[in-house]
């Protein structure tokens, strides 16, 4: 119910929103929680395990109870805290974990069964039969216990990630944070002030205290106005600092568009990485609950939340309010309620002495011993120093004291320290390098203390940064001492809740202690205390205290679990922003890309490159038809394909030859000018890294090519060899992959095509290289072949690539050929037993590949020593060819090889296949693979089994070069 004249919201109830199908009205600035309370909706959720009715407990991100689902369909978001979600026109929300309705929830039967459902119930009960767990027990339990559900549809909403840098990051914009930010900002430092709330000001918005003679929120507004006008300040409201990381890095989640209808220009959320030279944590404190019987009914709330709803949102959460506390907070709440005209029935104070008031009854040494009310609080029973009674009340505001919000100080591993006088954990000193803590977050609870500490923390921070601090005085404000006498639970029987979100009671913690889960980490996992989405912000310390009591130890001795990031839940979508679909991955396109698309070529992704799969012609309906035709075209006429994606590395310098001898297993120093040689590079562990060609273009000038897949790795490796291993060599290397477009021209009519292309015919021997002029452009010609046919590769500067490709294809078509794609290229190379990274997969040696003799003996090279160690050159799986030899003709890559009569189980495997195709040239399926001692087994029969595709194929082992074994075709 709204209280006339109270609150900071302006405007009328002109926002319409829905909760569980009913339309309600709220105001700009309302959260879903404040708007529901204003509409007297108290029952908003069912609890996780027992399906108990629950209401709003807090007014902040620590909320354990009021979780709802926002939106529908793909945009549906579960487990949204009603205390954080702002209302907007059209906001559609639903309760969770209740069926058929929130009021009549069938699974509330769990509550009646609660004597059987204590901690460890699942572990003890659903043990046998073993197979039942996955199929029966778990699905039932998952349906019964749980929070909101995902829609299952792909989320189309936009999320973003961003980076920011500053001198001083101030976390939290309450009195301490505002003073810290103001001090640092006036000194000229780059300041980011982040606060998770939609409106900055912290508790100044929720309290009636004056600061410098003005209401706290007015003072805060003036400070914020000043900050907003400064160029060196960035204000980030709705931004939660979620984690502290090394080197002054902080994660931050900004709710950019969650307070507006979806589908607008704004992303929903943004995930920030903020790098701060220094940070000041002013995150305030969170009020604790007290464990008393049935302390979880709707209407039972944190006292600070009751003040916040009243003073900030102008909402009275009840009509007859009672208070229960072990400190002065309840009295502060009572005064505020009375001033607003709300009836206060009484204050139950657990201490021997407490402030007394003529306006309400105070029960000293008081405690709440029970509560009643089916869907919300109706009455409480209390005991006090002079008796007991029952009180009719619809709202009980509780304060068990305050826990400093020190979570970020634990993120790098530091443990908070117990301070008995404050009955709270305080942040450890120096917990996060570069981070200071000020205000309530370090246990200073008075407004004056917070203001002064904010200034002080900023001064010290500025001194660290060698920035002169301005003269700034702390404003006048209340300076009441914090008087508390710890009370964790009310003695006696009954179910006393600790963790409202995970339904953990005092009894569960005591049971854990009895069953010897006495370590705080064990107790946590056995009872699930603090493991819900709120991470036990309200309840952890009380649960520790109960455990300490049950095990006869002190709280300090019992210790605490530490907090890990994130401080509050972060949606995966925000963290993964930019990673959906293609995300930020660049597209590397060859110069022939447009021409390939024009010819209808579907594209294959090869790393970041896009390469044409095949070039369909009229009448062809499957890729195989196109591929077979293109293979035949290359074998019988001439084909053109773009090979620009292969890595090209230019190597120059007086020691270029020595350098190449060092990085290649074979020798390149003996290569003559104008010649090309095939080479292999090893990793230092002796396995093959990559293969390719090396052309000597001049006395001290080589061009190395790599496979497409390994281009980056080889470049990095060559840089490593040059800078780290052989800095003594005078050699320079540079990647030239993108500077040159290169096309393969292959087939018996390749020579004729070249004659059409070039004005001056070039006589080039096999494995020769020459500078040429193509249509007036200086280029390079190599006579190399990856198809086994007479073949050339022509390279021109990339800006001429598009034109040259079109010209080559036209000329090829004139010779009865045309363009061919990756599919045909792959078939052509399998027919010839040429290698790709299917075979060079990182676990094969030169010996395995039949290239053992390429390893030169008279020189050192990368991988030489390790390649010579035992086990790398004998008793290995060796490269072989395979052809179908039985009724089944299909071969696949990834199949395992077995003896024909061996059971197809992993232990009997003798090898595997790496590449397979149908060869139109030979009219049969072919595969390359590795078979134990395979080179000695040509002619034998083995069985290829592909378990995934359900294939079992008898094959003949043969030489991996299936076609033209003596290489006569390439010689022309």
């Amino acid at each position, binding site marked *: 119910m709204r209280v006339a004249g109270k609150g900071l919201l302006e405007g009328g109830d002109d926002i319409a929103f829905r909760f569980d199908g009913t339309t309600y009205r709220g105001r700009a600035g309302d959260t879903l929680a404040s708007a529901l309370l204003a509409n007297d909706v108290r029952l908003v959720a069912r609890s996780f395990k027992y399906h108990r009715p629950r209401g709003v407990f807090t007014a902040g991100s620590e909320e354990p109870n009021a979780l709802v689902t926002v939106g529908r369909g793909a945009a549906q978001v579960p487990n949204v805290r009603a205390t954080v979600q702002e209302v907007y026109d059209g906001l559609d929300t639903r309760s969770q974990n209740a069926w058929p309705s929130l009021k009549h929830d069938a699974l509330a039967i769990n509550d009646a069964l609660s004597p059987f459902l204590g901690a460890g119930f699942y572990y003890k009960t659903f043990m046998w039969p073993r197979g039942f767990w996955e199929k029966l027990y778990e699905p039932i339990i998952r349906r019964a216990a749980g929070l909101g559900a995902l829609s299952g549809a792909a989320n189309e909403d936009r999320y973003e990630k961003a980076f920011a840098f500053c001198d001083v990051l101030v976390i939290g914009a309450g009195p301490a944070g505002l003073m810290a930010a103001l001090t640092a900002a006036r000194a000229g430092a780059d300041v980011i002030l982040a606060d998770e709330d939609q409106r900055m000001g912290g508790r100044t918005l929720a309290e009636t205290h004056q600061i410098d003679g003005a209401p706290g929120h007015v003072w805060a507004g003036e400070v914020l106005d000043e900050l907003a006008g400064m160029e060196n300040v960035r204000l980030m409201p709705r931004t939660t600092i979620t984690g502290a990381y090394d*080197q002054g890095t902080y994660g931050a989640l900004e709710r950019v568009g969650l307070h507006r209808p979806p589908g607008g220009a704004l992303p929903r959320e943004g995930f920030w990485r903020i790098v701060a030279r220094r940070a000041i944590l002013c995150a305030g404190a969170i009020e604790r609950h007290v464990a008393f019987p049935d302390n979880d009914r709707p209407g039972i709330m944190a006292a600070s939340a009751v003040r916040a709803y009243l003073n900030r949102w102008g909402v009275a959460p009840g009509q007859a309010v009672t208070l229960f506390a072990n400190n002065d907070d309840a009295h502060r709440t009572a005064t505020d309620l009375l001033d607003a005209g709300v009836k206060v029935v009484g204050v139950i104070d657990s201490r021997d002495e407490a402030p007394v008031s003529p306006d309400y009854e105070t029960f000293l040494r008081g405690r709440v011993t029970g509560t009643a009310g089916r869907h919300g609080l109706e009455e409480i029973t209390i005991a006090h120093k002079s008796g007991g009674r029952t009180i009719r009340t619809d709202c009980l505001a509780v304060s068990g004291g305050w826990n400093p919000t020190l979570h970020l100080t634990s993120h790098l591993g530091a443990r908070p320290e117990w301070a008995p006088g404050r009955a709270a954990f305080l942040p450890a000193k120096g917990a996060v390098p570069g981070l200071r803590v000020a205000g309530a977050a370090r246990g200073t609870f008075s407004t004056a203390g917070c203001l002064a500490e904010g200034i002080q923390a900023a001064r010290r921070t500025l001194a660290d940064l060698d920035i002169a601090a301005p003269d700034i005085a702390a404003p006048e404000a209340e300076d009441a001492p914090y008087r508390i006498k710890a009370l964790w639970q009310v003695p006696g029987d009954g179910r006393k809740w600790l963790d409202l979100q995970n339904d953990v009671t005092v009894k569960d913690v005591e049971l854990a202690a009895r069953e010897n889960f006495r370590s705080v980490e064990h107790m946590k996992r056995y009872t699930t205390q603090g493991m819900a989405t709120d991470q036990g912000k309200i309840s952890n310390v009380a649960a520790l205290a109960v455990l300490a009591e049950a095990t006869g130890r002190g709280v300090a001795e019992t210790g605490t679990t530490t907090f890990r990031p994130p401080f509050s839940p972060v949606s995966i979508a925000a963290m993964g922003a930019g990673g959906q679909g293609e995300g930020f991955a660049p597209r590397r396109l060859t110069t022939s890309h447009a021409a390939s698309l024009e010819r209808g070529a579907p594209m294959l992704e090869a790393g970041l490159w896009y390469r044409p799969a095949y070039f369909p012609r009229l009448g062809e309906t499957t890729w195989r038809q196109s591929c077979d035709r293109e293979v035949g075209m290359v074998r019988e006429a001439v084909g053109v394909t773009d090979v620009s994606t292969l890595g090209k590395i230019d190597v120059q310098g007086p020691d270029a030859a020595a350098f190449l001898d060092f990085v290649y297993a074979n020798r390149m120093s003996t290569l003559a000018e104008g010649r090309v040689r095939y080479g292999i590079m090893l990793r230092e562990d002796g396995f093959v890294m990559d293969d390719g060609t090396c052309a000597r273009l001049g006395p001290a000038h080589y061009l190395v090519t790599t496979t497409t897949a390994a281009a980056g790795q080889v470049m990095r490796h060559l840089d490593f060899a040059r800078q780290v291993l052989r800095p003594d060599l005078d050699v320079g290397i540079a990647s030239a992959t993108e500077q040159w477009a290169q096309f393969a021209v292959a087939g018996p009519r390749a020579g004729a095509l070249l004659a059409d292309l070039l004005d001056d015919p070039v006589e080039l021997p096999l494995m020769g290289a020459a500078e040429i002029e193509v249509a007036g452009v200086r280029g390079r010609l190599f006579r190399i072949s990856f198809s086994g046919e007479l073949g050339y590769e022509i390279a021109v500067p990339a800006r001429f690539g598009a034109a040259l490709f079109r010209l080559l294809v036209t000329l090829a078509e004139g010779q009865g050929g045309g363009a061919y794609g990756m599919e045909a290229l792959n078939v052509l190379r399998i027919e010839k037993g040429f290698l790709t990274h299917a075979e060079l997969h990182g676990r094969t040696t030169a010996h395995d590949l039949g290239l053992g003799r390429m390893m030169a003996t008279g020189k050192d090279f990368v991988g030489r*020593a390790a390649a010579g160690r035992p086990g790398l050159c004998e008793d290995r799986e060796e490269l072989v060819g395979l052809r179908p030899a039985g009724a089944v003709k299909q071969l696949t890559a990834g199949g395992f090889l077995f003896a024909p009569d061996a059971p197809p189980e992993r232990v009997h495997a003798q090898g595997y296949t790496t590449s397979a195709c149908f060869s139109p040239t030979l009219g049969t399926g072919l595969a390359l693979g590795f078979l134990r001692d395979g080179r000695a087994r040509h002619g034998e029969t083995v069985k290829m089994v592909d378990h995934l595709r359900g294939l079992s194929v008898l094959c003949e082992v043969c030489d991996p070069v299936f076609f033209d074994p003596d290489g006569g075709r390439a010689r022309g």
Partner: protein
Amino acid sequence: MRLPCPHCGVRDRREFTYQGAALARPDSPDWGEAWDDYLHNRDNPAGETRDLWYHDPCGTWLVVTRDTVSHAVHGAAPAAEGGA
């Protein structure tokens, strides 16, 4: 994590590729214990460590000195200059 590239300044670790401990390659071209150590055996120091990182944008191999306990990065120098 950010590393200081001597050429480019302090950069995000996403620009770097990690290699491993900065060790001297054995002189012998033939397999032996020194090679086994170089390839496989690593100290696991609590404290200062020197390892190799490649700064992809500028193509420089760096020896980075950092602390495995505090995660502090003390500095980086080109490996070609001895990584001092």
